[in-house]
């Protein structure tokens, strides 16, 4: 379905209900022959987005020559108006009578078993790099604009000309890493992956079209990894392209010739150089699509700190999203070239077909279940669930929340947040975890460091410290939970009540969370627990939170050593006061009636 947008996605693996908005195109694609008579008479002229604004289009147009279906679409935002009809020329000349001004958006509901997200990327807008003069100088263009100018199907039919005087430039510069690998607050810190080879390809195209043209490439590093890429790079050098290691700090235009003078420190020679060029191309980086957040919310995906969608596991499940039945391909996941995108798309399609062909799926053994006796229908669990796996309770009809077992990933955030303890986690039940706390603090509790560690990161970080033979104090006692989001406040207070001097909660870094956003609940809960500790007169710094990844064995050992020092600062009198305060609090809690849904802090 083209010219459509996904409005809503509900359901779970094998049973996704997708609502799609099929936009009104005001032209019947089955009737339209693409004769272009309508566009000829359309009086509206607009910059052609596909040609990067180098040419114009009409209000009725085909977005790009390869568009499928090859039928016209009416841009109603720029049409002179159809209510009342202000022009109507396109309809008058259309022989097939396929223009319908009364066309409306249609909502289409479909049911699918799996979803592949391949929504692509955007390119970085280099306007904030003011020193390159992109907004001031006509002859400074971006690599996307270069593509249109050099393309035979482009606005100049492949004649690469300067925008200022329409002459073919004899010298062209390329500045690499515009908006990529930047640490100065502009652009993005990551490498955009494709720009180096794109520039190498562009220089070869130039040399092929215009023998004798001088191309200078200003770069930090040329990253020419991949099959055949190094050969291509060497070919470019052999063609006479100059590669100058250094990023220009300033670009100034000569007002008469419109040539551009670049000042650059050549880091190979250590000299400051000036280069006068007739045209400059900025190799802009790539960025996540602006609507990635919409896609993320629709499909309950998580994103990394740079805004690209996170895979379930970078090595073992690189095309699986954390939500079962959803796969990712292409630049929605990270910047990549066509070959890698096609490879990933093939892998995603294969992974999807495994599920579809099986017709059934295995559910997690560790999932939540609702205790109907305890639930007070507050609905908090469905708000907490990162996977939308809990169909909300209804207080009016006394409908219990329903946990979709196929969608539940077993993070346990719902169980930890439920104020009524009405959610039970299979294999990580409250009683099981409390029993571990009790066992740790059975002997010499004042010298035990109770540590809750998430299965995927912190626990593995501890393993990493162990296998690397790193020294850390023996007071550390680990309790494994699937996610730090499972660590209920009652586990922590139970440990303090039994005489624990310090408690550590550790989990994945936010960008590594294996349960989309469950760590956010850990952070929120910790803020609440620290506040409660204040109210009870317990030092808040006796409860520590650390995000430790599986690779951070060093950090794990360092945190343990730091906490060993902190542990020594906790006096016996302090511990006894804590135990007393918590016992009194527990007695009060037992006397008090259960919290109502409205009182629950979200």
């Amino acid at each position, binding site marked *: 379905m083209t010219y459509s947008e996904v409005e809503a996605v509900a359901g779970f693996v094998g049973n996704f209900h997708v609502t799609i908005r099929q936009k009104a195109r005001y032209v019947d694609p089955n009737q339209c022959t693409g004769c272009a008579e309508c566009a000829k008479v359309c009086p509206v002229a607009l910059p052609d987005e596909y040609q990067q604004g180098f040419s114009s289009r009409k209000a009725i147009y085909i977005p790009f020559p390869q568009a499928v279906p090859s039928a016209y679409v009416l841009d109603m935002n720029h049409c002179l108006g159809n209510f009342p009809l202000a022009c109507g020329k396109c309809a008058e000349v259309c022989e097939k009578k396929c223009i319908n001004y009364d066309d409306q958006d249609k909502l289409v509901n479909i049911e699918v078993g799996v979803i592949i997200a391949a929504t692509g990327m955007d390119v970085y807008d280099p306007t904030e790099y003011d020193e390159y003069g992109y907004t001031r100088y006509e002859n400074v263009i971006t690599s996307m604009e270069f593509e249109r100018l050099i393309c035979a199907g482009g606005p100049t039919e492949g004649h690469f000309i300067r925008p200022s005087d329409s002459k073919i430039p004899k010298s062209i510069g390329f500045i690499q890493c515009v908006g990529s690998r930047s640490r100065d607050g502009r652009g993005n810190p990551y490498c955009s992956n494709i720009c180096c080879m794109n520039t190498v390809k562009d220089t070869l195209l130039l040399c092929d079209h215009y023998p004798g043209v001088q191309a200078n490439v200003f770069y930090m590093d040329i990253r020419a990894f991949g099959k055949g890429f190094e050969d291509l790079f060497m070919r470019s050098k052999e063609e006479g392209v100059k590669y100058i290691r250094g990023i220009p700090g300033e670009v100034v235009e000569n007002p008469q010739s419109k040539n551009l003078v670049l000042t650059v420190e050549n880091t190979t020679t250590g000299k400051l150089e000036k280069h006068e060029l007739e045209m400059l191309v900025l190799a802009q980086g790539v960025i996540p699509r602006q609507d990635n957040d919409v896609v993320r919310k629709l499909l309950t995906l998580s994103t990394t700190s740079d805004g690209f969608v996170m895979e379930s596991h970078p090595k073992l499940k690189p095309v699986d999203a954390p939500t079962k039945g959803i796969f990712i391909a292409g630049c929605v996941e990270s910047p990549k070239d066509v070959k890698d995108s096609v490879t990933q798309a093939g892998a995603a399609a294969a992974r999807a077909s495994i599920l579809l062909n099986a017709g059934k799926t295995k559910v997690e053994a560790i999932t939540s279940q609702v205790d109907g006796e305890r639930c007070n229908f507050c609905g908090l669990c469905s708000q907490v669930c990162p996977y939308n796996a809990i169909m909300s309770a209804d207080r009016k009809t006394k409908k219990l929340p329903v946990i979709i077992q196929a969608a539940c990933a077993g993070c346990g955030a719902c169980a930890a947040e439920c104020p009524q303890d009405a959610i039970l986690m299979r294999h990580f039940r409250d009683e099981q975890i409390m029993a571990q706390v009790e066992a740790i603090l059975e002997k010499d509790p004042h010298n035990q460091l109770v540590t809750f560690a998430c299965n995927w990161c912190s626990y593995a970080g501890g393993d990493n410290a162990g296998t690397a033979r790193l020294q850390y104090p023996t007071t550390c006692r680990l309790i494994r939970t699937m996610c730090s989001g499972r660590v209920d406040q009652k586990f922590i207070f139970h440990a303090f009540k039994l005489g624990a001097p310090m408690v550590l909660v550790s989990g994945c870094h936010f960008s590594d969370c294996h349960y989309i956003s469950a760590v956010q609940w850990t952070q*929120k809960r910790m803020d609440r627990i620290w506040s409660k500790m204040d109210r009870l007169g317990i030092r808040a710094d006796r409860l*520590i939170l650390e995000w430790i990844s599986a690779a951070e064995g060093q950090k794990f050992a360092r945190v343990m050593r730091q906490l060993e020092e902190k542990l020594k600062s906790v006096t016996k009198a302090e511990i006894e006061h804590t135990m007393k305060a918590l016992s009194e609090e527990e007695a009060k809690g037992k006397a008090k009636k259960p919290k109502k849904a409205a009182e629950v802090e979200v």
Partner: protein
Amino acid sequence: MAPRETKFKCLMCGHEYAGMYDPQNVTERTCPNCRSSSVRRMSESKGGEE
């Protein structure tokens, strides 16, 4: 609730600093002084610890 500037306190080193807090999108906190994640949000309205 809209994002707002709030005070944070590191429970490892005691360092206090101001930063943005968005209740709708809680982000990872790191103490700029000691790099610990044990950073506590302080109540902005009461001026004390929440």
